[in-house]
């Protein structure tokens, strides 16, 4: 029976009320301490061999007979009106098949607009036209032959310039838009009555995803049936986007994503490249591939917004009594922002809070969700401000946090958390890093002239998962199974987790489970984002496998002539009173019988708030004479429910920490203001961490199943580890230097500039030493 209910859904920091279907009965959750044989044990990735042999096929690798190649012509101006497009020279080039632009392209709805080629192009890299040719090289050559008449318009690319009233107004409603506001308690009164107030401005740079596989798609029509292969985190989202753009029914669209070279949030739906590939493929009657190159990826495929954040924080009686947090995010041409004030609203139990968040438009590429969007930026500002306040009132910053971290209720809704073990994270992390060594003026450094410090920060994030998600499990008569679910593995290890949960719940070996994902012809599963994959699909897979097991037991009871209640499935066999009958044997006389198990994710409890928590601790050494920051060690502790695969979970945390270190220390999109051009479109100038930038990373989990969350006790882990690292590092740098650098990334330039501006920090070596040992 199916029932419609309203349910609260949280995705990337925003909560919405949605309809959900309740189908079937849920299973009892796997309890704490319940003996599981596959889940909770380290398992190698099921696609490991494919990936180490080069056999894994990614969208980039697809080559189909007759396939043509599309490339985009992109605006060289940050803002201009496209008055005329003349493709005749390009069309005359041998091997060029077609050119699409705003005057000949069919209407195709895309992100609230009617066309993919706008009259007004709004950033360097905005799509102006597309060429389809026999090869990428010919298409590339043809781009230069398209003549476009641009009327160049005034532009602004920098966040703070865009806020400035004197700058060009690039949107009819202005450049600055209200995005979010939250108020609780009486902030004015609290600041008036405060014992101490810290007020500071923090800035974070634009971070670019740089997934190794750039965005891209291959479109194939077979009659009126469209198949799109796309490197995506959400095959069903791509299907929805194609349906809207091309106005064809779901039943005629299939989206496939086999292996996928990273997304980090940026591949949440259809792209202009997918629509262009589909349009050309329909027009030309042959498969078309459209894949971005690295520079295009860094112009037009999304980014983490740069932010300007002003935080005022007040203490009274040795506690945090009020926080006011105003934040401006450079959305580029985006229609939303990832709100940086989320952590300020929800992380700590503080009575008086006022947050205001603004979306700022600029002539740069749109933001896209980037691994804990908003929370990474906001946590940096919030957690630095808390450290500054702790310094001001002379209390250990971890001790100050502890006063506000123990509450078991969500301060926004007043509802209880399903589980919150943040204080445990503090205990484990403080022990592991040796927090008791921390002194207000830093630790003893490894060599004269260097400075060493400790810092920490907390994280809160959603990750409770959500319906809808469905799975089927086909049990073959030989005891092997195929689990089918429309999720995708973006590199996190989803395939392996699907196999683990299915094998565990069915009672067969992982090696006997084949995982079929990444195809919209499978049952629906949500976007692989928001740390919601495992907690969304896990319960559905478990139910599907349990359904299959139940049917198997029905069959076995009949065949073995034993009452079903006495039977269980274990290690690929039906077991009763010590007798083991292999599944294949059960089905021996029913050769072609297929057991089909179904499972659907049920809604979350209405009474509980599901969150993940964690804390990172960093130990750094800074050279105030060169501005170099060396992160020695990061201890990452997370409370994310049951860990399904300890092997890949650790990798996930290490990866998050490393990406966050890039954000903290070296990654920064640079845009030239006069020309609007991105100066850092490649890996030479846009500095992602190398192997040598990686510190020792200690990963710990509060491995406690959240049995109130769902039947697997799991929560998400994709995003939590990227959230608190930059703040922990910045706090450690401040502890080391005695100077606060409030702008990320902490490049040698910024550190040196800060040291030069605070000469006291350079000298005073001798008198500081005494403090450090005290």
């Amino acid at each position: 029976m199916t029932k419609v209910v309203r349910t609260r859904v949280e995705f990337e920091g925003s909560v919405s009320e949605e309809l959900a279907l309740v189908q079937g009965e849920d299973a009892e959750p796997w309890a704490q301490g319940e003996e599981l044989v596959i889940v909770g044990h380290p398992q190698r990735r099921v696609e490991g061999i494919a990936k180490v042999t080069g056999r894994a096929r990614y969208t980039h690798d697809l080559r189909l007979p007759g396939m043509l190649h599309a490339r985009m012509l992109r605006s060289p101006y940050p803002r201009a009106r496209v008055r005329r497009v003349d493709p005749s020279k390009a069309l005359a080039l041998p091997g060029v098949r077609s050119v699409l632009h705003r005057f000949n392209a069919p209407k195709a709805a895309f992100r609230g607009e009617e066309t993919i080629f706008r009259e007004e192009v709004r950033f360097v890299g905005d799509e102006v036209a597309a060429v389809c040719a026999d090869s990428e090289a010919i298409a590339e050559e043809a781009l230069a032959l398209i003549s476009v008449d641009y009327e160049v318009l005034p532009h602004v690319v920098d966040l703070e310039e865009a806020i400035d009233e004197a700058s060009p107004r690039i949107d009819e409603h202005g450049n600055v838009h209200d995005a979010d506001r939250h108020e609780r308690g009486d902030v004015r009164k609290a600041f008036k009555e405060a014992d101490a107030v810290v007020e500071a401005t923090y800035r974070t740079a634009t971070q670019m995803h740089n997934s190794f596989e750039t965005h891209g798609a291959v479109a194939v029509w077979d009659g009126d049936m469209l198949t799109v292969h796309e490197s995506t985190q959400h095959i069903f989202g791509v299907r929805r986007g194609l349906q809207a753009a091309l106005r064809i029914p779901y039943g005629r669209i299939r989206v496939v994503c086999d292996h996928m070279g990273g997304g980090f949030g940026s591949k949440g739906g259809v792209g202009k490249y997918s629509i262009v590939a589909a349009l050309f493929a329909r027009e030309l009657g042959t498969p078309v591939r459209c894949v971005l190159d690295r520079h295009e990826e860094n112009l037009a495929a999304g980014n983490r917004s740069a932010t300007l954040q002003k935080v005022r924080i007040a203490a009274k009686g040795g506690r945090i009594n009020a926080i006011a947090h105003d934040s401006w995010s450079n959305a580029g041409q985006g229609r939303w922002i990832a709100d940086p004030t989320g952590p300020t609203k929800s992380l700590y139990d503080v009575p008086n809070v006022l947050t205001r968040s603004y979306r700022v438009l600029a002539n740069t590429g749109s933001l896209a969700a980037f691994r804990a969007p908003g929370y990474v930026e906001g946590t940096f500002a919030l957690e630095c401000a808390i450290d500054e306040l702790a310094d001001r009132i002379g209390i250990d910053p971890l001790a100050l946090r502890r006063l506000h971290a123990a509450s078991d209720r969500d301060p926004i809704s007043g509802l209880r958390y399903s589980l919150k073990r943040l204080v445990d994270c503090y205990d484990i992390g403080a022990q592991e890093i040796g927090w008791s060594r921390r002194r207000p003026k830093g630790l003893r450094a490894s060599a004269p002239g260097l400075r060493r410090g400790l810092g920490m920060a907390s994280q809160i994030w959603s990750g409770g998962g959500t319906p809808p998600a469905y799975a089927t499990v086909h049990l073959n008569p030989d005891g092997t199974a195929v689990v089918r679910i429309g999720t995708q593995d973006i590199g996190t290890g989803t395939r392996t987790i699907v196999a683990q949960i299915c094998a565990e719940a069915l009672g067969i070996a992982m090696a006997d489970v084949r995982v079929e994902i990444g195809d919209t012809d499978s049952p629906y599963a949500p976007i692989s984002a928001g740390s919601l994959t495992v907690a969304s699909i896990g319960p559905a897979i478990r139910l599907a496998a349990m359904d299959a097991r139940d049917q198997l037991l029905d069959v076995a009871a009949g065949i073995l002539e034993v009452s079903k209640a006495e039977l269980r499935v274990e290690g690929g066999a039906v077991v009763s009173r010590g007798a083991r009958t292999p599944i294949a044997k059960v089905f021996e006389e029913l050769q072609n019988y297929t057991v089909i198990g179904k499972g659907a994710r049920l809604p979350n409890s209405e009474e509980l708030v599901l969150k993940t928590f964690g804390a990172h601790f960093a130990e750094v050494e800074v050279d105030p004479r060169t501005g170099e920051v060396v992160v020695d060690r990061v201890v990452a502790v997370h409370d994310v429910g049951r860990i399904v695969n300890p092997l890949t979970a650790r990798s996930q945390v290490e990866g998050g920490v490393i990406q966050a270190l890039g954000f903290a220390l070296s990654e920064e999109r640079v845009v030239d203001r006069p020309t609007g051009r991105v100066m850092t479109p490649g890996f030479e100038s846009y500095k992602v961490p190398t192997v040598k930038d990686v510190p020792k990373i200690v990963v710990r989990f509060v491995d406690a199943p959240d049995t109130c969350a769902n039947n697997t006790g799991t929560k998400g882990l994709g995003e939590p580890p990227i959230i608190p690292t930059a703040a922990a590092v910045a706090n450690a740098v401040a502890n080391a230097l005695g100077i606060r650098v409030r702008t990320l990334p902490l490049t040698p330039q910024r550190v040196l500039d800060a040291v030069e501006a605070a000469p006291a920090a350079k000298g005073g070596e001798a008198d500081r030493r005494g403090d450090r040992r005290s």
Partner: protein
Amino acid sequence: MPRATPVLGPAAVDVTLDVNGHARAIHIRPQRTLLDALREDLGLMGAKKVCDEGTCGACTVLVDGRPVYACMTLAVATAGRAVETVEGLAHDGGLHPVQEAFIAHDAFQCGFCTPGQIMSVVALLRARPDVTADDVKRAVTGNLCRCGAYPNIVAAALAAAKRKK
């Protein structure tokens, strides 16, 4: 005095590459990079095109045993030299020890940089089986990994080295 070599191109020319021990004849223009020749002409999709400008290492292959960026190497210039790609590592269904170690140590997530990482490590361990973590880091500094599998890559390389000894 050696005889002058003929000028090749700019039109397409016949070139024979030695890839994974096999002579492979292709017909390409001189501007074809080794990476494009492998992927487009020979269908070897292991080496990936990620930056196409010699900055990331995802296209790393071995030429005469040394790791190079295939995207910055002209295919015509590798004629007569031994090219090795990830596809050439596994023999008789058995994985190369470095491949096995990458799986055991979870040295990849999305896997897109993995063929390049593996080729860099294979070249290192062939030259000197006795390696330290610093040697591994030197070998893979030019192989970026956006998922951040670095700690496991270093661990995998050291484990493979230990096994080879």
